[in-house]
């Protein structure tokens, strides 16, 4: 497959760019933060639903668009440029993907319509503790009567304080399981973590939380397998957002280098800055390639998707840190003021970099995968 996006994918990307720049520019994200960290704008979400974004990766047999992850990736990349807030990551990239990968037909039939309409919002309760890991989950699930009982503690849950359903990853005596739990189920205590990107993340305790038997998402499919597939989607999708952040921060910085004058000249004439900018350009070219490759591998469902997802999350994590650091430094004093938008990019960059593992984590995975 050629390593370029198709005409259709390009059209989707362009329309997302136009929509987000008009309806959800950085100023909107700033306004949400200033309104006591509002999580997202409900009207905007409705418009995103109307654009079909919530149906992109849902199969046609459930009335979805089945457009694929390259398509969804283009939109997520654009939201990275404008830092637009919505449940797109929590409910669509992660939530709807779990539902698609799972084999519980009843749950699919029940929840896909609400996911697509945007009224059902899923949040993935995966991480336990301060760092991402893909195994050794301490949250447990036990059979109890006609259902299950969940006990555990999850945190760093994207939109975990606003979603109406959790997908909880828990260990049972029969391996890893994925369970759908309504957020208002007794035994659930939700507290909010407001992080430096002004986003709301859930820190959630599950104490003797009872759910009916048919709310397990994986019936025959092994939970470990589902998790691996889901993680490759998460890593690649978040990498697409980082690509958007990187490109926007870089473009803003190049623009600034062409405007800002010191010592009677535009600072972009200085070779010390030119060479740093040119090096960033090269790293960004690499980022574009691996993000697209990893998204394509998801759509092809190839075995290589696991490797490409780690490569993407490692490379993008490293580069988003580099580019946002350089962006602030090259902006000088204005770059560390709250008035300038560039600060929002370094803040979001740090959060996405850590979500689902930082680059050290993914480099280690790659080395282990290659057997060294």
């Amino acid at each position: 497959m050629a390593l370029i996006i198709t005409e259709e994918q390009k059209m989707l990307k362009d329309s997302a760019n136009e929509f987000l720049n008009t309806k959800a520019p950085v100023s909107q994200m700033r306004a949400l933060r200033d309104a006591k960290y509002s999580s997202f704008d409900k009207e905007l979400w409705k418009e995103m639903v109307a654009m079909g974004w919530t149906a992109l990766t849902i199969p046609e047999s459930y009335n979805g668009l089945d457009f694929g992850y390259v398509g969804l990736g283009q939109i997520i990349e654009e939201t990275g440029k404008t830092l637009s807030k919505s449940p797109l990551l929590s409910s669509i990239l992660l939530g709807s993907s779990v539902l698609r990968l799972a084999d519980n037909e009843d749950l699919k039939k029940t929840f896909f319509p609400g996911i697509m309409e945007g009224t059902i919002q899923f949040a993935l309760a995966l991480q336990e503790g301060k760092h991402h890991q893909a195994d050794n989950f301490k949250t447990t699930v036990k059979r109890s009567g006609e259902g299950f009982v969940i006990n555990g503690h999850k945190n760093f849950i994207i939109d975990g304080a606003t979603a109406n359903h959790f997908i909880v990853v828990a260990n049972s005596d029969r391996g890893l399981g994925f369970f759908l739990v309504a957020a208002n189920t007794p035994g659930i205590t939700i507290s909010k973590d407001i992080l430096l990107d002004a986003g709301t993340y859930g820190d959630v305790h599950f104490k003797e939380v009872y759910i009916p038997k048919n709310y397990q998402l994986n019936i025959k499919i092994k939970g470990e397998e589902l998790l691996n597939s889901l993680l490759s989607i998460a890593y690649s999708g978040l990498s697409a957002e980082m690509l958007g952040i990187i490109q926007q921060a870089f473009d803003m910085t190049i623009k600034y280098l062409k405007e800002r004058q010191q010592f009677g000249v535009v600072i972009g004439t200085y070779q010390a800055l030119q060479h740093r900018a040119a090096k960033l350009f090269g790293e960004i070219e690499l980022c574009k390639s691996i993000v697209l490759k990893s998204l394509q591998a998801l759509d092809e469902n190839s075995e290589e998707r696991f490797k490409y997802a780690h490569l993407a999350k490692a490379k993008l994590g490293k580069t988003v840190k580099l580019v946002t650091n350089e962006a602030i430094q090259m902006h000088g004093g204005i770059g560390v003021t709250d008035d300038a938008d560039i600060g929002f990019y370094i803040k979001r960059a740090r959060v996405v970099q850590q979500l689902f593992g930082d680059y050290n984590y993914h480099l280690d995975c790659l080395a282990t995968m290659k057997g060294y």
Partner: protein
Amino acid sequence: MQIENEVAVSDFRMETRSWLEANCPKSMCKSIKDPFDLYWGGRNAKFNSEDQKIWYERMLEKCWIVPYWEIQYGGGGLTPEENNILTQEMTRLGCRKPLYSFGIAMLGPALLKFATEEQKLHYLPEIVEGKIWWCQGYSEPNAGSDLASLQTKAIDKGDYYEVTGSKVWTSYADKSDWIFCLVRTNFEATKHNGISFMLIDMTSEGVSTRPIKLISGKSPFCETFFDTVKVPKANLIGSLNEGWTIAKYLLTHERQMIGGIGETDTRKNVHEVALENLAIQNGKIADSILRTEITHFETDEEIFDLTIQRITDEAKTGNNSGALSSFFKLYGTELNVTRQELLIAVNGSDGLIWEENEKSDGDLARKFCRSKGNTIEGGTSEVQLNIISKLILGLPTK
């Protein structure tokens, strides 16, 4: 329509694969250790083996020496898509290039764009047949990064040019038959506007060469001297004093070559070498810092290869910037420098062996030294950064 095309493409791949399998001798599918394991052609051409001769002759007959040039110039007339398939299939089998020459990689593209039809019909088929070994006369002792300040002069003597001056870093000049050269033809004009592009027969009276030894030991580089050399006027390519345009165009091809694009050689992964040479604990390289360095490097190496693929695919749809060759040259050579550093680290004291013995052939240490030239030749990394910042990012000059 699209389906028909896909069928045709898949047919071409299968035909190509079976032809290569049937016609490429086994010994020509082994990776090379030395550039001179390849056939270079030239007036004094010699084949290293019968297999090399057979491989060259079969590819010549098939018109696949330069498969993507047009048929009237000796090429195979393949579409970019077909050529891509051929390259992929050759890589898959590990086929060596049947002929290696600067004529194919550098001069040819410049001739195709700037030469007269008569010149094309004369020089291009010669390149394809490997009749002439070409070398490049660009840098001078006082014109390195500032190439445009070159001083080798060509004086108009009525029916010929008289060339006097010296060139440096002329690879394989001592083995070459002809040289493509940048010369100054106008001393009044600004430095970029007084340069012409000329072809000179190395057997002309007044041409001499002297080899240059590098820190890696012997090298292909030479100094080339011109002492009142007579050059026919027909040997001028393009317009008089407009050689800089050709020079820049040709440099983009040279950079792609140095950056490693289109190489069919197989590389061994650094981590595989590491596993053979380093202490392993619980299945991991015990030196966790070196393990991290290797992983950073291999991540970039793999993604750089994808980037070459992406930009090649984009170019097919008409999106291309010549300045991107500066990025390829920069990144490709910097990666190679890192690779050689890591290989030395991974091989420890054996990596330092200079003179061949039972432990090492001395290649590692020499390749390490040689790689230090990669980020200098063909325009230093700093010159590439200048080009990227000005031509791609549009950053202003003072």
